[in-house]
Every structure is written in C-alpha cells, then in structure tokens.
C-alpha cells in the first residue's frame, strides 16, 4: 500500500512538472507583417476597369490619371 502511494505521488509530481511540455509553441512570427501587392497588379475580381494592363505600372498610372481628371469640371467641360 505504501508503494502504491509512493508511485501515485511520483506520477502526480511528474505530471505537474512535465505539464508545460505539452504546450504548443506560440510563435510571434505568426502575426508578422505580410507584403502587400501593388495595386497596378490588378484585382482578382470582375470589377476591373478596361483600358489598362494589370502588371503594367505605367498603364495603371495613366488610367488613374484619366480618372483623376474627371474630378475637374473645367477639364470635363472642354
């Protein structure tokens, strides 16, 4: 009976001491910043405007510039 208590005590102590060993690692890198894709690469949906080529920065900038000019009624009224 004494032996059983001793074994039980050892098991409890081992369980307590080794409890942390089963914890999964919490790595901070999981929440690391991710690189963003540039807008001139285009969007993966069906709402893309026409008149420019996704991946071509110059054509995107030109399309945006054209749209920019539409905000000026002085240029629109010409």
């Amino acid at each position, binding site marked *: 009976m004494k032996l059983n208590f001793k074994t039980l005590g050892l098991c409890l102590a081992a369980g307590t001491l080794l409890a942390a060993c089963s914890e999964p690692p919490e790595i901070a890198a999981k929440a690391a910043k991710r690189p*963003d894709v540039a807008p001139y690469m*285009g969007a993966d949906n069906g709402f893309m405007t026409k008149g420019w080529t996704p991946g071509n920065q110059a054509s995107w900038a030109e399309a945006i510039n054209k749209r920019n000019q539409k905000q*000026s009624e002085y240029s629109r009224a010409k």
Partner: protein
Amino acid sequence: MARMKFICDTERCIECNGCVTACKNDNEVPWGINRRRVVTVNDGIVGQEKSVSVACMHCSDAPCMAVCPVDCFYRTDEGVVLHDKDICIGCGYCSFACPFGAPQFLSQGAFGSRSKMDKCTFCSGGPEVNGSVAEFEKYGRNRLAEGKLPLCAEMCSTKALIGGDDEVISSIYAKRVSVREANGRYPSTDIFGWSTAYGPSGSPAPKPTPADKIPGAKS
C-alpha cells in the same frame, strides 16, 4: 509615383453625406463605424456655415504609425497608410494620436473591450490578395487595384471632395481658387487638414515601408 491624397473644398461641401453613405455601402462598413464623416461648423449661421468631409488623410508622417505598439501599419508606394488587422490588438493608441479621428473601433464587448481598428484605406484594401473575398471582409473594396479612385471622391456631387495623385488634385483645386479670386470671391481659401497631414509645401515625399522592415517581403 503618385502620392494619393484627399482634398475637401469647404466652399463646395453641402453636407449631403453622400460620401459617408457611399463609403459605408461600398465597403460594407459595420454599424458603429464611420470611416468618413461630415463635420459642420457654425451651423445655421448664414454665410459662415462650413462643412468638411473627414477621413484618414494618409499623412506623410503618420502619428498612428509612430505610436502603434505592435507596428501593424505600413505605407504603400502610392503613399497610402494601411494596417494589418491580423496584427492589430485594438489598443486604441492610434485613435488618440490621430489629429483627424480616423481610427474607428467597435465597442460592443463586455468591459469596454474594443475591436481591431478600422479606418479609411483609400479604397486600396490591405495585405490580402487584391480583390479577394478575404480582403473585402477585412478592409473593404480595393478600387485602386481595379483602376479606380475612392468612391467617396468619385461620386461627390459637387466635387467638393477630390482624391487621387497630389499633383493632379492640387492643380484642380488651384484652378478653382484662381477662378474664385478672379470673381472676387473667397480670396483666401486654405485646404482643410493639408498642412497637418502633409506638412508645409515642399515637404519631402513620404517613403514607403522598406521591404526589409516587412518580414517575408521580397527585397
């Protein structure tokens, strides 16, 4: 490279709140959060009532970026200040630092707990795949990647709110001011928030977040 900015012409804004509605609808912004709002001063005083549409100004030296304890903000090549909601812990420091009240939080939890921060993205999403469902659910539309400008500016009925490349929109505004001056009206018109967000004229262009500062980014 374009530097994306907003201008709100206080002489033109009629407080219709169309920009607010367009932003909320297009980005499906939840109740309790307004990425854009219209502020009116001297309400009801004839000749002195002015309205201005305010959202994130995507500052050149953004205070929110400076105070964020988890460094979730980054600036794109287009000068747009964005943040990663997977990193944000909702501490609210950015909302105290921002001079425009741009960062927004849902506060529906117990003990005043806040959601992750939400703000105007200049309709350019976040660090998810451009135009993806995941990006839309977290950040809203990515109109820049679709070849468009922010909806709030594009649909403004009086063109009080204009957004886009700083050189283009400032030239549009300068033309208006010169016409007004020629007509003897509004001889001195300052742009709301311009110097606060972008510094005095001639300030150096903001630098995008370097790739080596973003773990996993290609240099």
